[in-house]
């Protein structure tokens, strides 16, 4: 499956940002990078990303706060959190806030790409679901209460 995805990577480490973006680009995805949560939120408002991959521990607002901000602004892009000091409480909190996955650094390229694939699949399923619901809604409002009665 060679679907091209639009991905945003948020991390305060330049090397991590560089190597991650290179890995995604080599896989054929579009990548935007942000070194802090504030910039990331601004960017996410401008463009609907297929996936947002964010580090948790960052100076200023951390990854979990970013996730809260995104949801508060109505941005529904799938978010995957990653951290070098992952512990269970952090993962639970991320999941509760609506993170799609929680990855512990270091992460292999294969695992990263698999995660991207999963996210895209989910995104596509969600879109399909939404479209079908939309159609059902249209049928209900334009036609009679019982479409089979005509």
């Amino acid at each position, binding site marked *: 499956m060679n679907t091209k995805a639009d991905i945003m990577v948020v991390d305060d*480490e330049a*090397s991590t940002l*560089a*190597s991650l973006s*290179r890995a995604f680009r080599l896989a054929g995805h579009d990548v935007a990078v942000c070194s802090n949560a504030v910039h990331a939120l601004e960017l996410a408002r401008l463009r609907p990303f297929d996936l947002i991959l964010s580090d948790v521990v960052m100076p200023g607002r951390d990854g979990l706060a970013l996730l809260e901000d995104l949801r508060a602004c109505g941005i529904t892009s799938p978010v995957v959190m990653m951290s070098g*000091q992952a512990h269970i409480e952090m993962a639970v909190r991320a999941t509760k806030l609506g993170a799609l996955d929680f990855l512990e650094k270091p992460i292999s390229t294969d695992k990263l790409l698999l995660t991207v694939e999963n996210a895209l699949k989910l995104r596509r399923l969600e879109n399909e679901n939404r479209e079908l619901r939309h159609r059902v809604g249209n049928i209900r409002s334009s036609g009679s209460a019982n479409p089979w009665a005509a």
Partner: protein
Amino acid sequence: MSLRQKLLLIFSLTVVLAVAAVAWIVSLRTRQAFTKADEQHTAALIDQFRRELQGRAADVAARVDEVAASDRLIRIAFDLAAAGSDPSPYMAEAAALAKDHQLDYLEILLPDGTIVSSAQYPARFGYKEDLHLAGDQPTFLKKEELSDSANEIGLFVVRKVPASELPLYVLGGKRLDRGFLADLAAPADSQILLYPILTPKFDPNAVVSATGEVERATRFEPIIEQARATGQQRSSVVYVTDRREDSVDAAAIPLKSPNGSVLAVLVVANSRRGLIELQQHIRAIGYGVAGIGMLLAIVASLWITSRISRPIERLASAAGAVAAGNWDTQVEVTSHDEVGELAQSFNHMTHQLLEQRERLLQSERVAAWRELARRLAHELKNPLFPLQLTLENLIKARNTPGVDFDEIFRESTETLAAEIANLKNIIQRFSDFSKMPKPQVEEVDVADVLRKISGLYEPALTQHQPAIAFESRISDEPLRVSADPDLLHRALSNLVLNAMDAMPDGGTLTINAARNGDSVELRVSDTGTGMTAEECERLFTPYYTTKQHGTGLGLAIVQSVISDHNGTIRVESTPGSGSTFVVELPSLAASAAKA
């Protein structure tokens, strides 16, 4: 009151009370014994007196019998029997007869009591003697009036002249006076006094003793008057002088006439000098014993308290030493009593304390090692992630057609070099922490150190984007402490750097330094995001960090340095409004003053 004083008081009281009780009992017994002896003495003297009186009476009776049986008196009786005879020629007979028969008093009386002749009062011739005349009366006491109108008390007997027609009587007697007393064998410490009642009022000059007149006879007036008034024997203590030794136990015995009137009072006085002296002696011994007892009590209490309180004092000072932190303090066990047990328990306690501390230290060491391992793993994970990704990217790029491999290679090698440098840096910081040098202390002015640090970091602060305002409030007076200037510089610089890191969005960094009592107080404040209470609590734990790139060693090093300088460090922080690190170092002036 200390234990020693209490014991001394108890021992002294015991000794004094015991000695006082013994002295009192001995004194009481002595007094009782003396009183009994006195009573026996007095009774014996009274007996002796009565025997003497009887002896005298017998003597008087014998003499009067002789007079009555004398030819001369028989002849006078015969002559007087002749009717109408004149008794006047016999006026001087009584005096001659009294002299012959050694009688003090002698009267020749007619049956009706008319005096024919009187030896003691010749002029009473023709007067009547108011007497019941009978043949064989016992002797009796009588007050006798003398020719010189003086009175005397005498022992009298009446006898009838035998074998005569005219019943003629002879009244003869002997004087009861000093001579009589002299014949009584009184012991040396006893005195016999006689008071003939010749005047209605007490006459001290009338009191006589065997040796003559009596000094201070008035002292006997109350007891004599009592015996006289009641007619009964009376006893009491009489103080001859005001001194106790001169007091006597006196018994007053009334001497009565046949009709019951008291004619004289005999006083038997036993000196109390012996008793008083013995009592004084007992008291002196009591004082002596009490004094010696007190000395012994002092010695005993000192000895006992030294045995009891010295080990307790040792225990107390050992407990103080343990409280001050010397947990290996041991107390010498010198006895097998309760105090010894206490000392053993104390030693056991300190031993256990030491063991527990050792166990605690060990578990802390283990925990620290675990934390170090965890921290190191985490620190290494961060640079490992880009290293791994970059390598995987390179491999992928090499096999992917149509990519600019050279470009990717250049970029990747840069990343690899940067992360390897990062790894080296991390290892270097851990290595530095393990090689913390020992402080080389000297006198340092903290104000100077802070001014240097301010000068060093002020440009960085102003150039920071956005800018960080800098406020310095350093006391003008020198803030001298004993410190290693390099270590102190590093520690305080670390605090300033931390404050800068806490304000990525700008703010104000404030440095305060001033003397606060015995210490120098330094405050480094930022207006950053602040920290939660939990974060503040873990802040100084080694390898803990709130920063992505911190080793978690900075503040641990700062705390270690401050602690090596006998100082303290703490943080005051409120989330959202910034943090203040407060360092307190002992002021050199204060520690010098203490030393």
